[in-house]
Structure formats: structure tokens, C-alpha cells
């Protein structure tokens, strides 16, 4: 499962149960639809463990952050998946937004490097 364009790539690696975000995501709200679908599928597939790997995600605009929050809320509703986020403090948007993920998903492990 993968969604990609010239500036970004989002894909799910089933063996390691890891969701990868890469590049710069500056799409309009409507253009996030393919990614949102992919995230919905990941929610369906998610077993007891899921890693979200965002170390190579340089920018995520507010519409993208919105999708990420919704993804987190959907995961919370399942309540069976332990989520780990790998992020980077070097990226400004991540510093701000990862805190909100913790609010939506209190059990989330945020691994910031």
C-alpha cells in the first residue's frame, strides 16, 4: 500500500507494521483523500502494534495534520493497538503536533530523536 507523488511518499510496510511518511506534504484538503483512505486501511489492518515513522517527513500542512489527528482518533476507537511514533525535533511542525497525538491517544509512545 503506497501513495506517492513527486514531493512525498506514504506507505505501509506490513511485515514490520510500520507506516512511513516521507518528503513534504502540502496538499489541499481534498487531495489528502488517497492518503486518508490508506490510513483507514491501516486502521483496519492494525493488530496489537503499529509504528508511525515520520523521521523523513519534512513538512505536513494543517490539512495533513488534520488527517493525522483523525487517524489517531480512529485508532483510539479500536483501543487495541499500541502505537509508537518516531519523529524528529528538528522539524518544527512535529514539535507542535505530536503533543496533540498524545491527547487523542494517551497510550501512544512518542519516540522523538
Amino acid at each position, binding site marked *: 500500500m503506497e501513495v506517492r507523488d513527486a514531493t512525498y511518499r506514504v506507505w505501509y510496510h506490513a511485515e514490520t507494521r510500520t507506516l512511513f511518511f516521507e518528503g513534504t506534504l*502540502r496538499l*489541499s*484538503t*481534498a487531495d*489528502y483523500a488517497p492518503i*486518508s483512505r490508506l490510513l483507514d486501511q491501516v486502521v483496519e489492518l492494525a493488530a496489537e502494534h503499529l509504528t508511525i515513522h515520520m523521521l523523513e517527513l519534512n513538512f505536513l*500542512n*494543517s*490539512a495533513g*495534520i*488534520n*488527517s493525522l*489527528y*483523525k487517524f489517531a*482518533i480512529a485508532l483510539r476507537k479500536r483501543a487495541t493497538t499500541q502505537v509508537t511514533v518516531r519523529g524528529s525535533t528538528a522539524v*518544527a511542525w512535529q514539535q*507542535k503536533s505530536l*503533543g*496533540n497525538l498524545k*491527547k*487523542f491517544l494517551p497510550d501512544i509512545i512518542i519516540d522523538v530523536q
Partner: protein
Amino acid sequence: MPWRHSFRTKLVLVAGVSVFAGLLLSGGAAYFGIAQLGREAGQETRRGLSYNSAEYLGKHIRNVAERLSGEIERAESELATLTAVAQTLIDHRRELTPLLDAAAASPLLRDRMQIEPEGRWAQNSGEEPAIVTAWGYLLDRPGDAPPRLRADVAAAIDETALLDLVMPPIFSEGSRKLQIYYVGPRERSFARFLPAKDLGAKIFEMAAPHNDPPNNFWDFFFPGLVDGWSAWIGDSARFTALHDQITLTPPYDDAAGGGPVVTLFQPLWTADRGAFAGALGFDLSLTAIIDYVEGLRLFGSGFAFLATDAGNVFAINPGGARRMGLSLTTSAGQGVSRFEQLLKDSSEPAIQGLALPTGDGTTSTELTLAGHPYVLTLVRLPPFTAWAGTAELYRSRWVVGFIVPSEEIYAALDAADAAVTASARRVLISQIAITLLTLALVMFGVILVSRRLTGTLVQLARAAGQISHKNYEVHVEAESADEIGQLGRVFNQMVGEIRQYTANLEGLVQQRTGELERANREIIALNERLAEENLRMGAELDVARRLQLMVLPGEGELAAFSELDLAGFMSPADEVGGDYYDVLQGGHAVKIAIGDVTGHGLESGVLMLMVQTAVRTLLASDEADPRRFLAIINKVLYQNIARIRVDRTMSLALLDYRDGLLTVAGQHEEIIVIRAGGEVERVDTMDLGLPIGLEPEIADFIELAQVKLEPGDLVALYTDGITEAEDPAGAYYGVDRMIDALRAARAGSSAQVRDALIADVMKYIGAAKIHDDITTLIIKRRA
């Protein structure tokens, strides 16, 4: 090129100056090192010398003190021996009666007492071992009969006749005694005196009143002395060692011209020690002692002195007395004249205030006499009992002093100092010579090397000058392997390229313009395809832009707040974002809102309009709790989003201002506070709420932050369109740049601050694309 601007001159100058400075520094260091060494060695030597001199002076003065006290002690022991004999005669008078009677009758010892022709005193013949004199008041003068020696006096003379055996050898041997004598108790105070001479006449000549009753020898010549001794009666400690009773007078001049003397007395007692029974006295010549003290030479001109502990300097040579500022005064007593040179009367302040030692050890001090430094060493002689004209007998000690000019002690040191100074000067001179010689050599070398070194540079400079005149046919000779040679080769290569470019320029221009033509044709084709699409999109964007701008508070509205100076700015992006701000007067507080709807376009604008309406409505319904306020806005928005099926959320912060206190609720960008003094505070709002419209209930996530605003303090609200604005290279503008711009402009009105910030952001973006709405609201508490 003028010589003083040339590279070579600079090179030579730099090398010369650095060599000169280096040599100067090292030479200076050597010179100061030697001077320092000399100083330290000098200090060390000075310490050693002072220690040695103190040691030497201390030993010497103790030797002198021992010698002087030895002199006195010898006389004391002779006196004690004689007194012991006389005391035995008293203590065993009964047992010795036959012996004493025999002695009194023996031709050798018998005293043939005769009345003086004028009847003034009685005296023996003078051919006997000692002269015996009974003063006028010891004679009976019955009526008209000639005077006779009193019978008790005659008996007392007989009882002491035996002393004539002992006194002569003691007088002639041992210490230098001018006179020795026995004098009876007050009531029989006749004298047995050596050397034999006409004592009666002598004393009469000296002190005629003494001869008449009711006088007695003791009270006349030594007032208080007998009373002083008698005070000891009954004190057994005083009588265990009788020689401790020896009592000294102050030094005085012998009336008979025998020079300075001191008298040593030892009293005699009745057998029961209950009454004074006469005394034996020595007039000890001080001449030898004084000559000895005056003759002492210490170092060059140092001298010694001997003083009583009352501060009377009685032995000192005239030069010493002059240096100590002492002056001699002689006071005439009855029969004796005392000489006094008192320390306290000195003309030298250091001597006037001199404190004599109180212990047994030597003391050493430095003092200044007539502006010159001296070292003074003092030690006390052993104590003795002293009489000074009253019945108060006391323990006294003499003090020996050495005074030596410091410069004589340190003469060797001064010589060493001078040697060190001279050698330091020699080092300085040789250092200067070495400096100058080395400088000359180095300069010579530098000039030689620089000529080689700068040759290529001069060529380069000339060649570059040619190029500036469009002459590209130049070549530099660059053979050396160093950087300058490399520079020359690179230069040649560059000149070659320039030559080639110049020749092929026209061909290049033709090639480039051909590329531009192709690009232009593509752009025109694309433009035609886009025109249709744009028409539709443009209409929607125009509506969104209008929506966004029309709900913002106008300038007049913002000016209506008396406590706050407010200025807002919003510039929608090409694709409108959903930025929002508003300032409204509520019943309890001024409500300030700032927010940013995710995404772009008409839907974002509509959502923003909903929030604005909801805020106004709630404010009108007088909702005072900021938490509830935000929670309700969230719920309304959540429901509306669900209803109109848009995929949008919003960051929103609501601020209440009242009486200088700003209360913040809701998650948005940081709130920047710039204090009037320029201090910066950043209020993070991440924990104050959640994005709006994402969850139906967010009350549990809402926290409040409070900021106290003083007059002149400034608050900046903004959306990420500012901090995420990109320059042409794609780098973000960022919070730090924004803070710098705000701080720099903080003194101005809110409108001026806003204008400065926006100008800074726009300058930063330059020609790059604006991705998002740019919004800010500047709040300043009016002074």
C-alpha cells in the same frame, strides 16, 4: 605604484617590526629577569645578614653583660665575706669576748682614739690598718671639760677592732674598691675606714653640718636606707641568705675625686636579727666598667651604653651620647654628686620613647636617629636591691645597650646590590647591541627574500592592469612552486579562458536566446489551456477572499478600546486559507480571537465565518467562563462540520483581557509577549486545548494561561502563514525572526509594529510563492 604602498615594503615592515618587537621583548625579559634575580638575592642576603647580625650582636651583648655583672658580683662576694666575719663577731660576741678583748688590747689592732685638737671629732692615729672616726655627735661634752669619746662608742670600737685584720686584705685584693668601711648603727655610727686617711677632716670639709648632733651618719648621707633595711626585720625569707641584702646606690661621682662609683652596702644585725647593727660598705669604682663600655666598638661606628632601669645612661662614650641626643646633668646631693643622662630627656624622639626590656633575653629593634637607621640591641643585667634616697628599697637592673648603624650591618649587602645593578646594566647594553645586529641581519635577509617573492606578484599586478584595459594577450612568468607561483599559473589559465570567452561571445548569445524562444512558446501554449480553468477557480477564490476580509473588525472598531492599542493585518494567500481574528467587547472582558482553519478555499472561509458567528453569539449571551466558551464553540463547529461534510478543523485561541490581565484558552500558535523593556516571553498554547472541530467534547483538554500586561507591553498573535513563510530558498521565516522584528519595533504604536513586522516578512519572502494567509494581530496595553 608608490613605494610605501607596495607589497614588498609592507612585507619588510612587518618582518622588521616583528623581529624588533620579539628581540625587544626577549631582551626586556632578560633584563628584568636579572634585575628581579638581583632583588631576590638581595632580599635573601638581607634576611641572612640581619639574622647573622642579630645573632652576633645578641651573643656579643650577652658576653658584655656577663662581664659587667661578673665585675659587680665579684665585689658583692667580697663584701658578703667581710660582712659574714663582722656578723660572726656580733652573733658570738660572748664566746669571743677574750679574743675581742685581746684584739682591742693588742698593739697592732688597738685603736688609740684621740680628740681632734679643736674637739670636733675623735679619730685614731692613722698609723693603724684602718682609720676609725667618731663624729662630733658621738662625743660627750660635759660642761667646761674637754670633750670625750662616749663610753659606749669606745666599747663598740673595741668590739670591732678585730676587723682590722680582715678589712685590709679585702680592700687591697680583688675588685677595684676606692674605699671600704664599717659604720656602726645609728646611735654609734662611727666609721672604720680604709684606706687610712684623715677621714674626720675630709668629711667635715665636705659636709660640716653632719658633725653636729642630733645627726647620725646614716640619716645624713643615706636617708631612708636604714629604715628600708629595718622594714625587713621579721621577714625570715630576707634573712636566709644575708648576702642577698646587699644594696646598691645609684652611680655617683666620688667626692674625693675617685671618679664614678657605686656604693655596695650590706647591713649587720643584732644576734636576734631584731635590730640594725651597722653595715659594711664598698665604694666600687665604675671607672673600669665605664671605660670598658665606652671602649666597645661595634662594626664601624656602633657603640654601647650602660643604663639604670630608671633610664639613666651612666656609661657611654661622648660620640654615642651625641648620637643618642643625651645631655649630662649633675645633681649635687649631700656629700655625693650624681650624674644623670636620662633617656627621656634625649633630643631624639626614638630615644625619648624607648621602652627598656622587661625580660631576661636580648631584644633587637630598628630605630632612626637624626634621620639614619640604627639597630638597637638591649639586655638586662641580673637584678639587685637598690636604694635611691628613700626608705623604699627596690629591685633594680642595669641595662646594656648596643647601637649600630644599619648601613654598617648591611654594607656587604649594598655592595652586592651595586654589583647586581651593574651586571643588569651590562646585560641591557649587550642586549641592545644584539637586538640591533640581529635586526640588521634579518632585514637584509627579508629584503633579499621579498625581492624574489614579490617579483611574481609585481608581474601579476601589471598583467591584471593590462586586463582591465581589455588586453587579454598577457602572460605571467610563474616558475616557483609556492602559492604565488600557483597563483601565477591559475592567472594565466584564467586569462586564457577570458580570451576564449571573449572570442566566442556571440555564439553563446545566439544559443541562449534560442532556448528562451522555445520556453516562451511552451508557456504561451500552457497559458491558453489554463485560461478556462482559471475563470472558474478565480470566481470561487474571489468569494472566499471577500468572505474572509468582510468579517474582520474594521479600523474604527479596533480604535474603540480605551485600554488597548490594536492593529490587525490579514493578507489572504492566492488560494485563500481560513485565517481569522476578531476583537469584541464582552460584558466581562475584551474577547480576542485568533484562529486558522485547515486547508484552503471556499470551505475554509465558510468555516471561519461560522466560528466568527459562534463567538459573537456566545459573547452576546454573556458566557463568562473561558473554558465553557471554547468548549461550546468546538461543539458547534464539530456539528456543523459533520453537517456540511467538509474535512476541516481549526486551531483557535480565545483571549480575555481585563484590568491588565490576559487569559488565554485554546490551542494555536505561541503567543509572543514583548515587555516594554524588551524582555520576550513566549506562551506555548499546545496544552491549552485541542484543534477545534475534531472531537465533540474537548472541555477536559482546555487549560488557561494568564499573562499580566503592564502599560507599554506588547502581545503579538499570528498564524502559521507568518512563521512558515518561505524565502526563495525554501527556508522558513520562523518565530525568532518574528520576535526580532517585534522587539526592534516595540516602541511604536501597534499599527507601526504591525507594519514593521509585515514589511519584514514580505522582504523575507521576496519573490517566493506565498503559500498561506498571512495574519497578525498586535495588542499593546496603552500607557
